[in-house]
């Protein structure tokens, strides 16, 4: 190798390193630095020590946002898994038009979240929403889908589930197809019912897929933002204020950049913690 050749490998990885440094490493380091400062973008940064952290623990609205997000996840994750798995099971049988349904379920995944949200907003409106019109038509009382603090977050959870379910159906379909058919045949001969085969063979054998889906929808769920931002702006009574929305507000409405970074940092740790718990209790070795 000549002297010049020695630099070629470095030259080749340089673009990636540069990209990583500018768009990943720097923001991470910078936001950690920010958590010890007060900064409103315009005036210079001011060192405040741990003040942002002590403020965080006393910030009731932030804890409310965390609570809201968890409330969302508690509905969203199980619903996502049960519906996606049930649909995948149905599609995995050789039913007619399976590929049509597969495409149909996947469509909302690729449609812009804003579009979906606006559509659902009209669906869920109290007076003119289609759902309530159907309810009144069959003489049932209207439901305040987005207008009642106890209901609104659950409505959003259902909507987000609907939007994402197609992606998880595909993941589950792949998982189901990796289970060798002979296990089902062996179970058949041992007298297993359909439910028993599902419970004792399918579920444990697709555990890796279930774990993947749990983690993906947890991370996706924690970043809940567009839907409440457009439909409810966090209301009513902050009941749909998600953690990410609150962090966004702190940064871009109040320009509390340091505090917002602190919230984000803490929030990332929380996600890490939740996923670690899931890894401990959901993942099983086959």
């Amino acid at each position, binding site marked *: 190798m000549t002297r010049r050749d020695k630099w070629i490998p470095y030259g080749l990885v340089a673009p990636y390193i540069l990209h990583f440094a500018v768009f990943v490493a720097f923001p991470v380091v910078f936001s950690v630095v920010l958590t010890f400062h007060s900064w409103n973008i315009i005036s210079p940064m001011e060192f405040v020590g741990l003040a942002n952290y002590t403020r965080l623990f006393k910030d009731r609205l932030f804890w409310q946002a965390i609570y809201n997000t968890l409330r969302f996840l508690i509905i969203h994750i199980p619903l996502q898994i049960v519906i996606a798995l049930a649909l995948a099971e149905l599609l995995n049988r050789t039913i007619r038009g399976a590929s049509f349904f597969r495409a149909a379920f996947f469509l909302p995944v690729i449609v812009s979240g804003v579009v979906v949200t606006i559509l659902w907003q009209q669906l869920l409106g109290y007076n003119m929403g289609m759902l309530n019109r159907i309810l009144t038509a069959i003489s049932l009382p209207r439901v305040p889908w987005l207008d009642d603090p106890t209901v609104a977050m659950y409505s959003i959870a259902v909507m987000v589930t609907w939007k994402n379910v197609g992606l998880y159906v595909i993941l589950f379909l792949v998982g189901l197809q990796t289970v060798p058919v002979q296990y089902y045949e062996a179970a058949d001969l041992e*007298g297993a019912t359909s439910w028993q085969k599902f419970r004792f*063979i399918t579920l444990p054998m697709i555990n890796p897929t279930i774990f993947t889906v749990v983690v993906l929808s947890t991370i996706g769920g924690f970043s809940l933002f567009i839907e409440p931002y457009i439909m409810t702006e966090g209301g009513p009574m902050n009941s749909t204020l998600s953690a990410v929305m609150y962090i966004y507000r702190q940064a871009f409405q109040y320009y509390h950049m340091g505090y917002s970074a602190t919230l984000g940092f803490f929030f990332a740790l929380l996600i890490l913690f939740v996923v670690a718990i899931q890894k401990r209790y959901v993942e099983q070795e086959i």
Partner: protein
Amino acid sequence: MAEVRLKHIAKAYTGDSRVIQDVSIDVNDKEFVVLVGPSGCGKSTLLRMIAGLETITDGELFIGDRRMNDVPASERDIAMVFQNYALYPHMTVFENMAFGLKLRGLPKDEIRERVSKAARLLEIENLLDRKPKDMSGGQRQRVAIGRAIVRNPQVFLFDEPLSNLDAKLRGQTRIELQKLHRELSATMIYVTHDQVEAMTLGDRIVVLRNGDVMQYDTPLNLYNHPVNQFVAGFIGTPPMNFLSGRITDAGPLRFESPNQEVMIDLAETGYGNALKPYRGKTVVLGIRAESISHQPFTDRTFHRQPVVVEALENMGSETLAYFLVENQRFIARLSAEQNLSFGQRIDLFWDSTKFHFFDAQTEQAIQP
């Protein structure tokens, strides 16, 4: 009571092309029947139809007195050992064996008792806590058999259960399966393409070809009285030697190979009468390697054939000698003391009481 009866069973996977044509077999209670045949002849298909894993296109299947065509696999009370064992990877050996019993809701004590009894029988008691992936092929195979026997089913089905084992283990397991069959005294149907396995295990053997039964008989009868050339060539190692030739038109009744390399007087072979109608026609002579000797027989008629030794395989206890007859390779099984060398000219003696003749057209055996 668990005899298995197949009546004119047929199977088409797609459209009209039938992979099983018309199979009728009766398997008696407690009998060990082996299905044997070349790859793709439909052995697994037949077994899976009995198990209920494939639908039956035509014909009727009875187990005991019950017609099983429309009974789902889960209700047939049959256990099957798959070629790759199909042990549930997420369960321990104990859980694998207990699974079927648990599904039936048997009490825990009884499950434990039955599993440990089977484990003792198969000598796998020390493996009960292992997962399938932590065991050798032979051990998995035992567990698969264990899973079958704990349920005490009416019928056992085996689909090439030994094909993933090495030769030595295969031999051992074969003997253990025989023992197991005696101890359980259950009806067993066993699929293999290995005719040695078939001969050693089966009370009776079904020889299949292209979805048709060629012959259904005891191992000895298959060996001594094959009904056609296919069975004759399939059963026995090394395979039977075949040579086609003509029966003379007139004069003394003789078999003559095309270039007159082999000429056999038939008057004294016991085929004297049977071959008379074949005068002027082509037949196939069959003779097994073990019916050829390097010295004349003293107690029976024989045919003397001068040959040139082409190759030798010394097996220790015996020597396989290869030679050409009418440019076709023949094999003789000779005693090992012979001092033979390649290219040597020797006389070999063919036991003419062990000749087989087949109609060249229909391949059916000509009965003496």
